[in-house]
């Protein structure tokens, strides 16, 4: 059990690397499943052959697994710093009732609520129903909530997006009976 959690954490560490693509999409460079270095295209192979060209290549090379040889522990410590210094990346934990382990997502990747919802739905394989200002989420057993800076649990969607991103500390997708208190229909 610990192992599964740790494997997931390892995969998530990969997810925090700077790369194009939303979280939750298929990894092109995999670790763990197989040790094949997955080079997305052959062009990069050819770049390797001609030694003089390395510095003039304009598209950045696909990242090779484990190269340069910096431990992931160190990479991630510095990565957080880079994100913060570049004003990027606001990673929050996402838990879902009943799921064995948590995930992490970068809120700054999204521009508005529907994008976030879609990503969460994909990640945890559920549907969130429709949001209503008065009644909250209807049509599903699942309700997305978040913990804000004051430590209170709020319904996702009530405040403007920017305010949400700056005050959200962690997300929790609630399920079932607890959900009734938030005024979800049924």
């Amino acid at each position, binding site marked *: 059990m*610990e*192992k599964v*959690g*740790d*494997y997931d*954490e*390892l995969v998530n560490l*990969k997810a925090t690397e700077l790369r194009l693509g939303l979280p939750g999409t298929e990894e092109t460079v995999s*670790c*763990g*499943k*197989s*040790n*094949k*270095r997955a080079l997305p295209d052959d062009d990069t192979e050819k770049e*390797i052959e001609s*030694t*003089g060209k*390395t*510095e003039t*290549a304009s598209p*950045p*090379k696909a*990242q*090779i*697994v*484990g*190269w*340069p*040889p*910096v*431990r*992931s*522990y*160190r*990479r991630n*410590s*510095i990565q957080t*710093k*880079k994100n913060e*210094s570049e004003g990027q990346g606001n990673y929050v934990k996402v838990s879902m009732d009943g799921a064995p382990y948590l995930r992490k997502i970068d809120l700054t990747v999204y521009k508005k609520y529907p994008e976030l919802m879609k990503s969460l739905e994909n990640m945890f394989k559920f549907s969130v129903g429709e949001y209503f200002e008065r009644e909250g989420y209807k049509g599903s057993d699942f309700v997305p909530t978040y913990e804000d800076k004051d430590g209170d649990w709020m319904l996702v969607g009530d405040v403007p997006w920017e305010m949400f991103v700056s005050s959200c500390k962690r997300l929790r997708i609630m399920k079932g009976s607890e959900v009734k208190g938030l005024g979800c229909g049924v």
Partner: protein
Amino acid sequence: MTQDRSEMSEDDDDQRSPPLDLRSAAIAEPCSSSSSSSSLVVVADSTPNKSRNCISSSSSGTLTSQPFPDHVLENVLENVLQFLDSRCDRNAASLVCKSWWRVEASTRSEVFIGNCYALSPARLTQRFKRVSSLVLKGKPRFADFNLMPPDWGANFAPWVSTMAKSYPWLEKVDLKRMFVTDDDLALLAESFPGFKELILVCCEGFGTSGIAIVANKCRKLKVLDLIESEVTDDEVDWISCFPEDVTCLESLAFDCVEAPINFKALEGLVARSPFLKKLRLNRFVSLVELHRLLLGAPQLTSLGTGSFSHDEEPQSEQEPDYAAAFRACKSVVCLSGFRELMPEYLPAIYPVCANLTSLNFSYANISPDMFKPIIQNCHKLQVFWALDSICDEGLQAVAETCKELRELRIFPFDPREDSEGPVSEVGLQAISEGCRKLESILYFCQRMTNAAVIAMSENCTELTVFRLCIMGRHRPDHVTGKPMDEGFGAIVKNCKKLTRLAVSGLLTDQAFRYMGEYGKLVRTLSVAFAGDSDMALRHVLEGCPRLQKLEIRDSPFGDAALRSGMHRYYNMRFVWMSACSLSRGCCKDIASEMPNLVVEVIGSDDDDENRDYVETLYMWNNGCMF
């Protein structure tokens, strides 16, 4: 000082021990039949009558007119062997004869196992009866770079459960790259009442709940060092789990624990730990909190400063006098941390700079301007780790001031192949000219020249460890456009004490020819994206008699090269080759021809076209403890 260095050195090994020619002796256990007179003759010749007289009076057995010769000799041996500390010496002594094997085994209290799969826990406890300290290493180093499946193994569980029954007096466990669970830690805490030291380096599989159990149950705990390990946040207040009375703690390192801690409890713990000398905080301890801790613990010699920043806006009223807190720490010689450094507060450490022998800035993105005023005070510095954000300019400042420097590590702030490289041959050259006592260097850069590497080989003759990582694969000397052969060649040729080498950049077979010709003391070699042909690997396997650990990735070495080293593998700790040109057939041949070798093939393709291709080969010697 040595203590602090070994704390920081990630891959430090006992450099003193020359390799043993173990052959079959170590692998075949001596039979347990009663010793014959032949063993007696061997030893008796060298033992004069004098000692026999001594022994018969001190022997604890019944005094008969003719004590059994074995018992006499074994008593002598026991008394003598207890003074042998070095494991190399002990290994040698154990090979003399059965009697010596037995006595050595019964007196060895510190056991070092370089590869946890080379020996089973059962064999360990069968051979050694009085172990109080175990050092155990698991996964090979390339596992750190995601080149191994995460569930590969190196589990601590079988070790702890076996030792729980056989070594109730166990005091120390030091693990590196092992998979340790909370259950393992719980068993450890319950089974060893006198347990004193737990050191976990680059381990994973456990969380704060496991740590809490150790903190709570190991009442004699002196050392709890969690170093670069992955510790899951179980949301347990483990700091509060230490017992209420005065503790025996001498060293507490938790800088890698990515979880908030109860500061009040920590403060209380430090206050009731009068022997605490080493404290390494994680990034959830702010500057203000650090200040309070320092005022209460002026006896510290080694400090990891935590975040070195604030969360909220600093209170506009009295900001604590951080420099005063550091001034009070007259004994601090080793400084690290700075996990979320706010550079404007860095001057607070000025008071301790002049005393520092070890400084780790490798998590701090410091510019040259912020860095230079600090380093200019650090005249006694021997160990220095930093990010390349200090630039060549910062390295020049190091070279000007740190004349006692022994170990330098420069890590990349942006660890990608095509990033900007703030350090280059300029910094390396400066260091080589200013720090002539340098023994160990790890240097990440984007561009390098042979000239600078040659200069280092000529200026720093004390080098034992040279690890240069030019981050762009196959990158040549950026001034001449030539391969880096001459540079690395000069290193193996001129640095006569070199035991560890890691190469990079564009390298042809010539570089390996140099290694084979001159690298006579090299024990550890790391190769990546280098060489042209099998000849390269052959040069090394045929020319480096002391080679113990060989790790190669993405290089064009095939079956012929692998076969050429058959005569060597029994005498090596391990060989790792990934993404080379090996075939399954060859690996099978080697496995069948060398029964003592464990040949593991990892992660090869299942689909038919590539079935013969070996993605990763990891092989090691079975039955040798090294």
